[in-house]
């Protein structure tokens, strides 16, 4: 039963990704779609860390920054092809998450929050200040992935927007599939258990420190890949991707949609990606309305969009 829920979710998501483009009035919508998918991917990582394992990170943008700058720097400085740079960035993020996570994951709640915040700020600071390498706060160009050209040679001619829509859409589906697999797997259960009670988790044999670290590393890799995809499609990256605001944005998207639910997180990413685009019609009222919407969602759907709505629907059936 659980398995079918998982595949229904994925199927629904895949269908949505495949069908909506037929209703896009212009190429710009592909851009928004691919942004949504990239954010959704990063936020899915937050679901694993915060939703499953209950650990807060206010520094995950740091990993997105590493993923992004890997794509900017590795091809230029070391001749790594951009696609491999994504993997390299993920590897660096994973290792760094491991090294950073070991000491800081002993901390709880807000203390973990501030420690991870410190990590994120350190990354952003290096990206800002090491001008010789990163070209500083104004950002740096990112080489082309090259895949689109390849596809063209094979006769598949996509616009830039379409191409990235497809690539990020596929990545999101894979990311969601993995996160959903994890949820009801032994490791996922261990994560959710330590969320409930670390002491009890220890007494049933869960190596709390270890699985927490696994969750941290996995979610860092999600953020890193999302950062890479963003950099590659923008062909340009600034240290802002690693900034505190971006970290908070990820957490906000996750909580808004429902932090323990993968579809919720993706919906949350969708809302916060689309809203600023929709709100442009309100010009200077944009911020005001954005804040208001966030508050209203949390007041009326306190567990986030998807879990709260599901609960209501289920409640009605009973």
């Amino acid at each position: 039963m659980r398995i079918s829920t998982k595949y229904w979710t994925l199927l629904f998501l895949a269908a949505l990704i495949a069908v909506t483009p037929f209703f896009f009035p212009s190429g710009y919508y592909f851009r928004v779609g691919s942004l949504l998918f990239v954010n959704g991917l990063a936020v899915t990582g937050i679901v694993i860390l915060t939703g499953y394992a209950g650990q807060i990170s206010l520094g995950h943008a740091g990993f997105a920054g590493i993923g992004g700058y890997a794509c900017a720097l590795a091809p230029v400085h070391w001749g790594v092809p951009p696609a491999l740079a994504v993997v390299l960035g993920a590897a660096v993020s994973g290792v760094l998450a491991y090294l950073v996570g070991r000491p800081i994951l002993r901390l709880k709640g807000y203390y973990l929050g501030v420690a991870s915040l410190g990590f994120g700020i350190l990354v952003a600071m290096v990206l800002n200040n090491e001008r010789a390498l990163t070209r500083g706060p104004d950002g740096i160009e990112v080489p082309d992935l090259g895949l689109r050209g390849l596809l063209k040679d094979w006769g598949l001619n996509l616009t830039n927007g379409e191409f990235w829509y497809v690539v990020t859409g596929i990545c999101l589906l894979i990311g969601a599939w993995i996160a959903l697999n994890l949820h009801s797997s032994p490791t996922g259960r261990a994560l959710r258990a330590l969320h409930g009670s670390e002491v009890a988790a220890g007494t049933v044999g869960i190596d709390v420190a270890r699985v927490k670290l696994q969750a941290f590393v996995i979610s860092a890799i999600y953020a890193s890949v999302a950062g890479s995809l963003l950099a590659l499609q923008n062909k340009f990256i600034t240290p802002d991707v690693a900034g505190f605001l971006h970290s908070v944005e990820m957490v906000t998207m996750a909580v808004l949609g429902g932090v323990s639910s993968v579809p919720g997180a993706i919906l949350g990413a969708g809302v916060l990606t689309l809203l600023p685009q929709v709100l442009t019609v309100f010009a200077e009222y944009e911020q005001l309305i954005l804040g208001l919407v966030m508050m209203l969602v949390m007041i009326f759907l306190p567990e986030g969009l998807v879990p709260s709505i599901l609960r209501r629907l289920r409640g009605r059936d009973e």
Partner: protein
Amino acid sequence: EIRIGASVSSTGPAAFLGDPEAKTLEMMVEDLNAKGGINGEQVELVLYDDGGDANKARTFATRLIEDDEVQAIVGGSTTGTTMAILSVAEDAEIPFVSLAGAIDIIQPVKTFTFKTPHTDRMACQKIFTDMQARGFTKVGLISGTDGFGASMQAQCKDVVGDYGIEIVADETYDPKDADMTAQLTKIKNADGVQAVLNPGFGQGPAIVTRNYRQLGIELPLYQSHGVASDSFIELAGKDAAEGVRLPGTALLVAGLLPESDPQKPVVTEYKAAYEAKYNQPVSTFGGYAHDGLALVVDAITRAGSAEPAAIRDALEATSGLVGTTGIYTMSPEDHLGLDLSAFRMLEVKDGGWTIVE
């Protein structure tokens, strides 16, 4: 109908650049339409706020081009957002006039990208020329770590050798910092320092200037064009700002310009209109937007067409266009079209700007 797109940072860390830019653009388009538009066609301005975020700026650039189908883009309040817009505009072959400072925007020259503010490199050159004239050979640098400050810091270090000047102290501060006395104390104690230069914008330079006075540093202080507005004097305090020099534009000293100055009518008119409409003092930054739109309007008028390619070609052929920042003459090698003469060395005297001759 002609559609002109704009993405500026009306909110976020660069809001006080983007805010006057947005207001200026809206005001000018309104005015333009009231006067019958360009070549008889009405102009529609599609304006977005990118909040200073490069990623958002890129999305809005895509939106402007693909969805709103604009024929030209003005905007990019900061170098970061400009770079994000730039690649979209170049790919789509839409002319783009940037309002940001860094020299990288137009060097090397990109086919469709132009810009209105002086480059940070020019600001450095103007300042060092002045320092050289005053006989300084050792200076201290204190820069903001924002894009503008960091970029100008790098450019200044690059050109400083040409003027026989040596940088003996090189400090930075975060744009949101509340106190810079620690950095200034280090500069003050640096060996033989004769003057101090502060590249940066926002409140940082105002605090630097106040701390400068607090510490009783007697050396001449140079600011950048990033603070060129009356509010700088107000924020730093008249006493503290006294004697501060910076490379500014005609706009700041509209009243002091001789009648013969070709910029006089342009700046006076813009200043009057803006201040009447918004009840706020003009700033150099609004002036950049003024010039950006003026360049586009001029190009369309001359081209007699609003085809992006035609606009681009006409932009590149701009000649002698009088703006608030200077007089623009573009060429295929120069997509800025200003030289050092457009900069005027200003000094604060008795709480107001004066022109140093």
